[in-house]
């Protein structure tokens, strides 16, 4: 490894990332690689080093930048600093709409990973099975991005563009994740299907946020599925079909056709056909759980 930068101010980090030699080096390996919690960086390094493949030479460690830490709440909603760890989220007092995110926070690796891994890292790593993504999709999260050129905000659904791909340019850094203030009655859950209890990559993950009105009907349902397509995605069709339904009837509505947008693959964790079917079952169960608490909240 060559360069190891550890800025303490965001501006310094952005300046380093803007350095043309580093940001635009033709060899990807020479570009600055961003390191925060290290929970994706080091495993990737181990995987490459095992077969003597090149590993990133130049690193910018953003973990010392105070501006990127902390959870802030204001009238517009909640903002999670990029360096917010999964344990920070699990331990924070957050509205019930974040219960799914908090459950997911306890499923990201073991507690050692949760203590170090960051919310922005989970998004930037852009794994199809990232457990943080489905709950944030259901919360309509927006990714705040900065570079020396300026700032921009991108909805999470547009931020991840493919398997391990995002819209982030080489000189950009995610600074925070903003979640608009959820409806007070919104209730959420997160269900993960894996082949063992802890430390497991999801076969299917489903997050749901549901609000039930005083009339007992679904005012809003947001449901997202992870590990069943290159990018975790919201089930827009299903959400539309659920809106306005009496909560008691809702689960019956969930059907195979609602999973049509998913594009699961065969891998060591499961077959594509299994994933598609499991996504349906887990979605029904997640909705059932969520509706029960949401209806309670409405009553």
């Amino acid at each position, binding site marked *: *490894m060559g360069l*190891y*930068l550890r800025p303490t101010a965001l501006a310094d980090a952005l300046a380093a990332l803007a350095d043309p030699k580093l940001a635009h080096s033709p060899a990807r390996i020479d570009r600055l690689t961003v390191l925060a919690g290290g929970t994706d960086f080091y495993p990737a390094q181990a995987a490459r080093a*095992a*077969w003597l493949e090149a590993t990133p030479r130049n690193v910018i460690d953003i973990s010392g930048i105070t501006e990127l830490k902390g959870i802030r709440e204001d009238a517009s909603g909640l903002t999670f600093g990029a360096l917010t760890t999964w344990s920070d989220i699990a331990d924070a007092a957050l509205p019930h709409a974040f219960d799914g995110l908090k459950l997911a926070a306890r499923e990201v690796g073991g*507690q050692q990973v949760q203590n170090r891994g960051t919310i922005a890292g989970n998004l930037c790593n852009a794994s199809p099975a990232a457990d943080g993504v489905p709950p944030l999709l259901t919360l309509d999260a927006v990714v705040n991005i900065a570079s020396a050129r300026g700032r921009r905000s991108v909805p999470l659904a547009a931020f991840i563009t493919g398997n391990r791909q995002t819209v982030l340019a080489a000189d950009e850094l995610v600074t925070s994740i903003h979640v608009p203030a959820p409806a007070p009655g919104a209730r959420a859950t997160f269900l993960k299907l894996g082949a063992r209890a802890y430390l*497991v990559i999801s076969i299917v993950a489903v997050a749901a946020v549901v609000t039930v009105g005083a009339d007992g009907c679904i005012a809003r349902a947001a449901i997202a599925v992870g590990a069943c397509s290159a990018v975790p995605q919201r089930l827009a069709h299903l959400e539309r079909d659920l809106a306005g339904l009496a909560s008691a009837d809702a689960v019956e509505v969930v059907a195979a056709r609602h999973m049509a947008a998913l594009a699961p693959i065969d891998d060591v964790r499961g077959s594509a*056909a*299994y994933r598609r079917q499991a996504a349906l079952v887990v979605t029904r169960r997640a909705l059932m759980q969520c509706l029960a608490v949401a209806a309670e909240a409405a009553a």
Partner: protein
Amino acid sequence: MNERPSLSGAAPVSFTLNGIARTVVTAPGERLSEVVRRGLGLTGTKVGCNAGDCGACTVLMDGAQVCACMVAARQAEGRSMVSIEGLAELPLGRALQAAFHRHDAAQCGICTPGMLMAAADVLSRHASPDRQTVMDAMGGVLCRCTGYLKIVDAVLDVAQAGLQTKGSGARPGEAVGQRVLRLDGAPKLTGEALYGDDGAPADALWLKAIRSPHAHARFSLGDLAPFLTRHPGIVRVFTAGDVPGENAFGIYPDLKDQPVFGEGIVRHRGEAVLALAGTRAALEAVQIADLPITWEPLPGLHGVQAALAEGAPAIHAGKPDNVLTRGVVACGQPEAARANAAHIAEGTFETSFVEHAYIEPEAGYARRVGDRMEIHACTQAPMMDRDEVARVLGLAREHVRIVPTACGGGFGGKLDVSLQPMLAVAAWHLDRPVRCVYERIESMASTTKRHPARIRARASCDAAGRLVSYELDGDFNTGAYASWGPTVAGRVPVHAAGPYRVPHVRNRARAVYTNDTPAGAFRGFGVPQAAIAHEALLDDLAEQAGIDRLELRHRNALRAGDTTPTGQVLGASAGLVACLDALRPRWQALLSDAAAFNAWSHALRRGLGIGCMWYGIGNTGLSNPSTMRLTLARDGTLTFWNGAVDIGQGSTTVLTQIAADALGLPVSAFRLVVGDTDVTFDAGKTSASRQTFVSGKAAQLAGEALRTRILRLTNAGPGARLDLDGARLIVADGGEQTVVDLAQLPAAGDGIVLEGVGTFDPPTTPLDAKGQGIPYATYGFAAQIASVDVDLGLGTVKVRRIVAAHDVGRAINPALVEGQIHGGIAQGLGLALMEEFIPGRTENLHDYLIPTFGDMPEIEVHLIEDREPLGPYGAKGIGEPALIPTAPAILGAIRHATGVTIRKVPALPHRVHAALAAAGKAVEF
């Protein structure tokens, strides 16, 4: 402000570790684990995967558990950390260490530092956590030995001070049968135990193997000089031409088919073609593209069907059909008998490669001492390592010394040499110490696995459910090299009909070469695979005959006096009936429980299964002696010279308990010397569940021999009581007391005045062409019940409870026996439900899954002690028997719950679901 960037990279970092302020110069991006272990020399923090998958490197950072392998050292700037070496200073640190010791929560000990740090974290956050809280907090640490339950008990014990278990320092003559605390336990709890990567000399060079990414390829090496010029920190490149002796190793004398370095061809992915010696930094900088290696990939034979196909090319000259070896056991007339049987069951079963997943990857160092070679490495078989290294170096075996380090798990995987030969070659040429540690991925890609099996089997019984015949054809994928393939092919036919009286048997097994990862020894040598088949067929027959599954097994169970399929008459100690009797009330109760549960449950179905097994203790029809030695020195030092490697199963403790009672002195009186090939006799390898039985008997004989000498010296009777007080040996016989002043006795050069040596070789005979003979002197027997819940919507299986009954002859140390059973069940559960090694695909511990804290069932253990007259105080082995019944019991329970039989393991959710869907049993909610 940016820190002053230094393009040379190195920069200081300051932090507090275990209360001490430290400043260390670190390389850019260097892992905290490396800085702690290599920079500061605190090797108590272990590295198991470098990827956050195992948690062995867990330390506390500002009070929170983190994996030191995923923290950049520079991120520790200004932070306060605690590693295992500082645990005792934490409020509950000592209490945790003591509780782990008391509960026998550390077996091999490699995960223990991480476990203890995670435990300290949970107890600092929760004053009185419940089981679930403990498991949730510790779920990031993997253990491959214990099955986790005793770890949770230990943590809860500290939290609640209520779960006190008994451990004892036994009185003289009363050690056998006691829960004597692990004699080598304490250093594992403090981080002081030195494993393969912990003790190399400071001036050692590093060695790194370069391995084939191809499963089958020709390769050629270009000029290495320019490479060496570009990498001045690399001292030398070693290839096949540098091997001074024979470039070959392998378990069997006539099957040395595995090269230290490939010679123009590689036969499996991960095969070493050369090795580089140099500084660690120089080795880390090497990229594969730097090396002048030209690969010519060739089509590979993957799986036994491809290797056995008509016209398949031969992987090794001399084995044109790719069949390494065949094993057979035949008796009676199975075809004719089957024709008259009332019920016939048959099926095809498939198992996968299983990885040992010891948390300690292969590691060690070699140094040349004059014209001798010395290897310090983790191993299960020091004498075999010695002979392999001697052959590779072209030395007499006496010129090689193997000093086993602490062994962080083996399970059969450290019976073969791995890095020893190449370390020896490098140290021989360089004449300076050379060390090596495998990366997790390297370890998984290159070392042996459990043989995948394709088994076709048929069983028949009469109308009363009495077994009539059993026929098995099993093909075992032995991978690219022989390793223990012949052992598997030999052991399977003996055991394949199960622990039952079967008059007509024809079992055939083949070990088949492929271009897959070599398969070798793994806890059970093929018997766990075969047990899946025989237990499934017994369930079929029970169903056909309308007989309860436990009763059918009871009816057929081998008893003392019965004849086995090899024609052996079991003289004694065949306790399967007693095991089943012990389980029967639990079976009935759990059947009722399942029925009650299923009466209202829809998506979740509960089922019960039972698995039985038998397992021959020791080598199959081959001599496998062990020799143990006890000495008294003139200064009164009582030394136990014990060549049996303790890989965490506890032989050091068990053998000392036996020796202590045989001699008549307390366990605490012994100084222990374990495993050094220069100073201990050959105890044989730690495998085949043989150390308690074989080395235990040798230890008993050694103890008795020394006692006899002492009694003769003092003219005392056999009931005399011994006491050792410094150099005074006090012999009390009835009213008389004689004091022997050891300092006055004539001593050998090494100060030894009295000695007792014991040798035991279990009486066996080789099997003839029909597999007839006495392959083993004794057998372990067991039965386990599994209660599982199957999710009909998702195909997931949760094992709720295992009730295990094991005939161990005599439990020398019940706590350690329980530990073996718990750990065996964990591995059996993994085999049944989640473990599937796929070369090139599941070469790490996040794609390859082993059970975690949360996957373990509750376990009830019933110890049956049907004494084995040949064994020490009646004991026989438990290591492998612990694992074998679990997978069949779980699979039987899945079937009972759902009506679906799973014939390919692991029963991953998608496989179970596919079977449920095909049977119309899947639900959509």
